[in-house]
């Protein structure tokens, strides 16, 4: 049976998530991608107040298309997570408990996931039209000037996820294409 989680991840929910699990999330999640991450990390480094409280929250690496008339949001699939790898540990330190994206993560992110007891999820890549059906409300809450890279608050219903790295650091990509990942990591580190 598919597990259901909320947008606020307490320890009990996190401990119940194992690598490979298919999960639905119901509740509030926040979008943030490259430029928003850069700004959030600046805020954290300068010990200023974050525009969104990250404690126990989930960030979705996504820059949606504009909402057509009569719709809540446009196409809203995941973007490549590894571009957020340098920033992710700072956000995890600030209390973030979940990240949704596509593709593999760096060793540093995996270590931070273990240290701060968080989870990395995948969602269906290149299926932004399908995923838009799971978004019930959407509004920009910070960095409006970034256009599609602004931070959106999304209220989601049965938004589908796959647990890719659980809080013990077990990684879905480890037991699959190991060789491909090794080559990739050598390239970026």
């Amino acid at each position: 049976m598919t597990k259901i989680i909320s947008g606020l991840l307490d320890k009990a929910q996190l401990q119940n998530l194992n690598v490979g699990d298919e999960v639905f999330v119901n509740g509030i999640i926040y979008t943030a991608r490259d430029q928003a991450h850069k700004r959030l990390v600046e805020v954290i480094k300068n010990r200023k107040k974050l525009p969104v409280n990250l404690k126990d929250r989930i960030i979705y690496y996504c820059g949606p298309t504009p909402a057509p008339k009569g719709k809540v949001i446009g196409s809203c699939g995941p973007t490549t997570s590894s571009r957020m790898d340098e920033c992710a540990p700072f956000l995890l330190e600030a209390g973030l408990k979940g990240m949704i994206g596509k593709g593999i993560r760096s060793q540093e992110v995996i270590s931070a996931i273990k240290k701060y007891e968080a989870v990395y999820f995948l969602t269906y890549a290149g299926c932004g039209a399908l995923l838009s059906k799971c978004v019930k409300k959407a509004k920009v809450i910070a960095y409006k000037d970034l256009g599609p890279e602004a931070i959106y608050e999304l209220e989601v219903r049965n938004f589908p996820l796959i647990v890719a790295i659980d809080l013990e650091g077990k990684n879905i990509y480890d037991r699959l294409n190991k060789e491909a990942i090794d080559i990739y990591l050598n390239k970026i580190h």
Partner: protein
Amino acid sequence: MKKILAPEITKIVADLCIQANTVLRTDVLDALKTALRKEKNKRSYGILEKIIQNARIAKKEKLAICQDTGMACVFLQVGQEIKIAGDLKKAINKGIEIGYRKGFLRDSIIKNPLLRGKPAYQPAIIHIDIVKGDKLKITVLPKGFGCENKTQLKMFMPTAGIEKIKNFIIEVIKKAGADACPPFVVGVGIGGTADCACLLAKKALLRKLTTNDQRPTTNNQRPTTSLEQGLLRDINKLNIGPMGLGGKTTALAVNIETYPTHIAGLPVCVTISCHALRSASKTL
């Protein structure tokens, strides 16, 4: 002399932007359906089903197939007997602007690559070929950057041989892995100069996909057909699969384009398209 007015081009480009971004190419959809029939891995099967379902929703509701509506790449074949009245490049970029706005597509283009800043819809990347005749063919290929980021160019020794080229292509696919949204369509450009090889690879993505089951008969085979077939078989043994979670379907097709090159060189460019390979054309 046949005369085409710039506003006509603007309108066509705008329509093609919306069509390409919301209606998945039939050859790509067919290749996905073929892959679904063959996929044994349960999770990969489920992902392929979702990808096909996504294309159906996008078409029905006129939504973008993917939120990354790309950088618009526009390919023109201009017949040398045509007269275009007005500013051609301006007309194209205006068409991109109108189409992207009207189609609720994403503004992903930043003016200054170093300073970044607020995104806009255009300019497009425009490639113009002058050809014989009095026709104008316009093609719009919105290229997403999850996969574009994985493009690689290698300048081989002229004596390198086919095995080294094949290994390079396979390495590029492995490095692209889950990030570039497999199953891929792989575009390869071999020959010319460095820039020519990159353009050939991009143009290879425009060619209709043929899976290994539906190859043309031996009499009308291209010289690269067996190389494409062999590479597709090898790539699909990598077990990268949809979303990088394993399975038989790592690529839907490999398309290779070649051009004469210099005695001292052998440029090879490999470009990748995600499963949402989008393009649309119109001929005037």
